[in-house]
């Protein structure tokens, strides 16, 4: 366990040293969030009753999404992992007394957390200070907030487990580009990164909510904003745990198979 923790630590401290990237990220995400909220504002002012989420819930959803972008963006994959597979540096990783899957998993988690830590606080603080109705509201009660935190971590784990599949598939395809392009755009759409899942037609929403993509940002962000409560919430958390187990088990099996038939590229 200590091995994976120190992997986590090194990746985490490495992530913290990119200050300029963090500043640029904060600015981009702040403006992106503001634009999105203004667009929704325009729609809501036409007929607020027709929308599945309250405007204030919508605003909190957007700000949290921007603050934790590093948790839930599929496209924030680690190029270094693809590189080790493509250029054969995987040879060194394989001659360590360490499980490849766990190693990459802990390093991806560390990477995403270090990015989020640098970016989330300024965005959250500004969003909290903004005037009604553009600012972020507090969660309904402390219980909801705790469940939000738990599902946030679960969502991150599901996201990383999903990315692990993309890394492992690269063992077979060598070039990650194709898989990457398809899976990133599909995930963005299906996970509620572009528009929240409640905005989909009811029947489609039902299907989407049972997919692993909904176990990423959809659950924590909607719990925080109070859009997901009661039995629906419990069910969503159970699904998160279920998908996490499925993705990790599947990923580990595929990874073991890939390593056995691995060829090291480039001599």
């Amino acid at each position, binding site marked *: 366990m200590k091995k994976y923790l120190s992997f986590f630590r090194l990746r985490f401290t490495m992530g913290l040293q990119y200050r300029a990237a963090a500043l640029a990220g904060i600015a981009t995400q702040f403006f992106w969030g503001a634009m999105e909220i203004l667009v929704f504002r325009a729609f809501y002012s036409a007929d607020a009753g027709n929308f599945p989420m309250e405007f204030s819930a919508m605003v909190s959803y957007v700000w949290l999404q921007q603050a934790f972008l590093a948790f839930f963006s599929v496209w924030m994959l680690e190029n270094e992992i693809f590189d080790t597979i493509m250029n054969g540096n995987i*040879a060194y990783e394989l001659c360590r*007394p360490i499980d490849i899957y766990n190693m990459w998993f802990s390093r991806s988690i560390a990477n995403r957390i270090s990015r989020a830590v640098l970016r989330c606080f300024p965005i959250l603080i500004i969003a909290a200070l903004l005037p009604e109705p553009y600012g972020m509201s507090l969660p309904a009660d402390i219980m909801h907030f705790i469940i939000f935190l738990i599902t946030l971590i679960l969502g991150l784990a599901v996201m990383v487990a999903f990315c692990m599949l993309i890394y492992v598939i690269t063992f077979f395809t060598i070039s990650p580009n194709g898989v990457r392009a398809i899976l990133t755009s599909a995930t963005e759409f299906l996970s509620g990164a572009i528009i929240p899942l409640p905005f989909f037609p009811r029947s489609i929403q039902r299907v989407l909510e049972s997919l692993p993509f909904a176990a990423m940002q959809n659950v924590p962000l909607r719990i925080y904003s109070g859009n997901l409560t009661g039995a629906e919430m419990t069910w969503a958390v159970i699904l998160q745990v279920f998908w996490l187990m499925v993705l990790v088990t599947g990923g580990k099996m595929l990874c073991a198979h890939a390593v056995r038939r691995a060829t090291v590229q480039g001599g």
Partner: protein
Amino acid sequence: MITMENVCKSYKVAKRNAGFLEACKALFSREYEEIHALDNVSFTIRDGEMVGYIGPNGAGKSSTIKILSGILTPDSGTCLIDGRVPWKDRIRHVKEIGVVFGQRSQLWWDVPVIDSFELLKDIYSIPEQVYRSNLEELTDLLNLGELLRSPARQLSLGQRMRCEIAASLLHSPKILFLDEPTIGLDAVSKLAVRDFIKKQNETHGTTVILTTHDMQDIEALTNRIILIGKGRILMDGTINDIKQNDLTIDETVAQLYRSYEI
């Protein structure tokens, strides 16, 4: 003790001729060629031996090293290292070995070298005491003092290679595989590295298997030479067996390659 018996490994390689038409043709039917990287390779190496593993480019040297270090699984044949099958018992096996791939880097690019070392300490669960004394010894012998605090990306090739070698020895491995460790080194670094490897072998009894194209490395370090060509072991003997008086070592080896038509 290392024993390899009748190990075979082949790769499937897609081949086509140059040009646009050929590329279009390859869209529909692709020609694969089976490359026999290793063809019935067998040898035995005793504890504490230093062996030079030589052969022309593409002979199968690196494939052998990768099988010995548990990275690749051979198609057939057996391999036992101190009672372990490397690819089946990978994690337990790699704890006991050190590997240096001269063409690759194991150091983290963006952080000081010492951070990579600390990580290796945790990965191999090296006790603090052992780590301290090994680090001190390696720093001293390989002259790393100034390098440890700089990021790996800002080191020159020779400086980096010295750090790479140190990184592979922090956990006091019993067996050391060196795949072209002196590639791109200047004269001073080369001598330092050779000296160092020799000392490791003398004082710690480390078994060393070395592949290189630099025959001076072989001459300085090893007595026993295993020659591989086209995936087959062609000769297993000492440097004196092949040495001819009027030729330099490089000419001798070139002569040897020619006589085997490899």
